[in-house]
């Protein structure tokens, strides 16, 4: 299941919904992404107003309604092809968030832990590089778009089939 929403989510409630009436699940992994107080590291270009030691006040997530849902659904389907999952959930927020706020939730459930751990990591790695979201960080020196990170691309590539 996937959801794209402005509202916050309650991890305990999401787990309860996902596992309601199920007795076949032996392992459940959750990942939560939070807004960090310090700005994302950027390349050293003269245009960058925000450095990684800059405190941010807000992070605004823009997305592409329609394509976002399709992309997240595709990623979840791919995880289900690769691992024997009993249940999974991706919730991604958009709009203006503050440091400490929850951004993204990934839950995977399987009979055994290895599939749940691996699938959760896969889902996060792929949604970071394939789902159409963009982060705008704003601090005292102004607002700036977060740049895509090479190590995120490398993390996602680990899962590409050769």
């Amino acid at each position, binding site marked *: 299941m996937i959801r794209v929403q402005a509202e916050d989510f309650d991890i305990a409630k999401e787990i309860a919904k996902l596992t309601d009436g199920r007795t076949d699940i032996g392992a459940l992994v959750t990942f939560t*992404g939070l807004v960090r107080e310090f700005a*994302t590291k950027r390349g050293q270009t003269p245009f960058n107003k925000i450095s990684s030691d800059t405190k941010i006040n807000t992070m605004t*997530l*823009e*997305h*592409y309604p*329609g*394509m976002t849902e*399709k992309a997240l659904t595709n990623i979840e389907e791919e995880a289900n092809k690769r691992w024997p999952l009993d249940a999974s959930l991706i919730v*991604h927020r958009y709009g203006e968030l503050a440091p400490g706020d929850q*951004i*993204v939730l990934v839950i995977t459930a399987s009979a055994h832990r290895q599939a749940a751990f691996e699938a959760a990591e896969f889902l*996060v790695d792929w*949604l*970071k*590089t*394939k*789902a*159409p*979201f*963009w*982060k*705008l960080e704003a601090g005292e020196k102004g607002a700036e*778009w*977060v*740049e*895509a*990170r090479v190590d*995120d691309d490398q993390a996602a590539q680990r899962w590409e089939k050769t």
Partner: protein
Amino acid sequence: MKILYFAWIRQRIGKSSDDLALPEDVKNVQHLIDHLKGLSAGYAAAFQDLDAIKVAVNQEQVGFETPITAAQEIAFFPPVTGG
């Protein structure tokens, strides 16, 4: 043709979408970019660095050589940074 812009591409162009009648010789994404760059300084600035631009045709990410003659919706955006 419905064209969408996101993040700093949207900001440089100054709007989030266009509905354009395209000349017949605009047959793929690269042709469309060349056409858009000629519209104004804002478009030219938005499409200055093509390495920093991704494109989706009908909500699927594709390459610049992709034909667009049968496309419903084209979107330009920077590399994604969600999660």
